[in-house]
Structure formats: C-alpha cells, structure tokens
C-alpha cells in the first residue's frame, strides 16, 4: 500500500500495525525533516507532488518489494505540502517471517521512492532564501545512502 497525505503521519503510524501471526519481524523507517542541509539552516520544507503519477509509481515500488522479497505486508506513506523541522515526511512499515527480508524490503522501498516517485522538495532557509533540492547525482546512478 502506498499513500500520499497532506496531514501529519501520527495517526496512521499509530493505527497501522500490520498484525500477522506469521510475521516475526517488523521493520519501520521514518524520514524526518532535518534542520540543516549542506551547511544551511533549514526552517521549513515544502513538498510538491505530481499526485496522479506519484500514487501509481509508489504502488509499483511497493509491489516490486513484494516480488523481490518474501515479505508479509508493506505500507509506505509520504506527505506533501508544508512540513516543519522534525516532522515525519515519509513512513514505511514492512513485516516478514524473519527480520532480514523486512530490512531489505524497507531499504528497497525508501531507495526507490527517493529515486522515482515524483515529489519535489523546496527548502526555506533561515536567511529567508529558498531552493528546490535537486539531487543531480541521482540521474548519474548515485543513490542516496542516508535519509
């Protein structure tokens, strides 16, 4: 399941447990808004989204995780709109029989979301400037190794 939402992720995180008696492992990841990027102090973030495509592409990513890894369940939720420092921008939960597959699938989902899902991030800085975060390295085959 892949979802986009403007509201805080708190409720969905609290309500979604993916309970399954066959699942012995549950791995989650959350990406939070950081207050500094490339030495500049960030005060606010704004995610812009191409909603129709982001939903389709996000669902494809999660479906691929099911095909690649023997997992029981997976959910990924991404926010759009304005986010404050410390807020959760993305949340992933994966369950599997054993922990290894859940770790791998969770890593796959976040990497592919960052690489393919059409969402863009504008940072607003303390000095009142603003800029789109455009990772030109992604196009050259580099993948983000950290959130």
């Amino acid at each position, binding site marked *: 399941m892949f979802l986009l939402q403007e509201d805080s992720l708190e409720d969905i995180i609290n309500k979604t447990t993916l309970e399954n008696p066959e699942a012995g492992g549950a791995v989650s990841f959350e*990406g939070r808004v950081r207050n500094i990027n490339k030495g500049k102090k960030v005060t606010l973030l704004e*995610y*812009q989204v*191409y909603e*129709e*495509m*982001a939903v*389709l*592409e996000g669902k494809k990513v999660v479906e691929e995780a099911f095909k690649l890894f023997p997992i029981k369940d997976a959910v990924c939720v*991404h926010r759009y709109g304005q986010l404050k420092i410390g807020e959760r*921008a*993305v949340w992933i939960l994966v369950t599997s029989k054993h922990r290894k597959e859940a770790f791998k699938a969770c890593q796959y989902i*976040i990497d592919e*979301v*960052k*690489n*393919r*899902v*059409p*969402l*863009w*991030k*504008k940072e607003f800085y303390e000095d009142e400037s603003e800029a*789109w*975060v*455009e*990772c*030109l390295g*992604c*196009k050259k085959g580099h993948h*983000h190794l950290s*959130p």
Partner: protein
Amino acid sequence: MKSIKIKYFSSLRDAAKKDQEILSIDSPKKASQIFDELNERYHFHLDKTYVKVAINETYRDWDTLLDGGETLVFIPPVAGG
C-alpha cells in the same frame, strides 16, 4: 491540430510561471523536441540530462512520439523521502 497537456513541477514550474498549458501540434513530435522548444521559450535552468519524461503518468524515453491527447510532464530530479 491536436493538443498535448503539459504539466510543470518544481523548478520548471517556476521557470514557466504556470502549472500547466495546452500545446497544439500539427504533426507527431518527440518528447525531446517539445522539451527543446519549451526550453527556448522558458529558459529552464536544468539540462535535459537531469530531466526524465512522463507520458500519461508513466516514465518514457525522450524519443517517444506524441501525436495528441497525451499528458506530458518533464520530471526534474525528484526529492522525496
């Protein structure tokens, strides 16, 4: 005349100063040709190497021909997560 819907996002939206527009074409055109024409008009600061193409919400090649009725989006480097 046939038409293509172009949607703009991120820095391309800032450069075009609009969310979307309808482009009229009288013969099929490659996505790359359309980007070059729009780049001349709006002066996108991004090189084509860093941009991907989406047609009807699916990633496609720059050589894909559009002959009207499609939604075309040039995807600047994404930054989710």
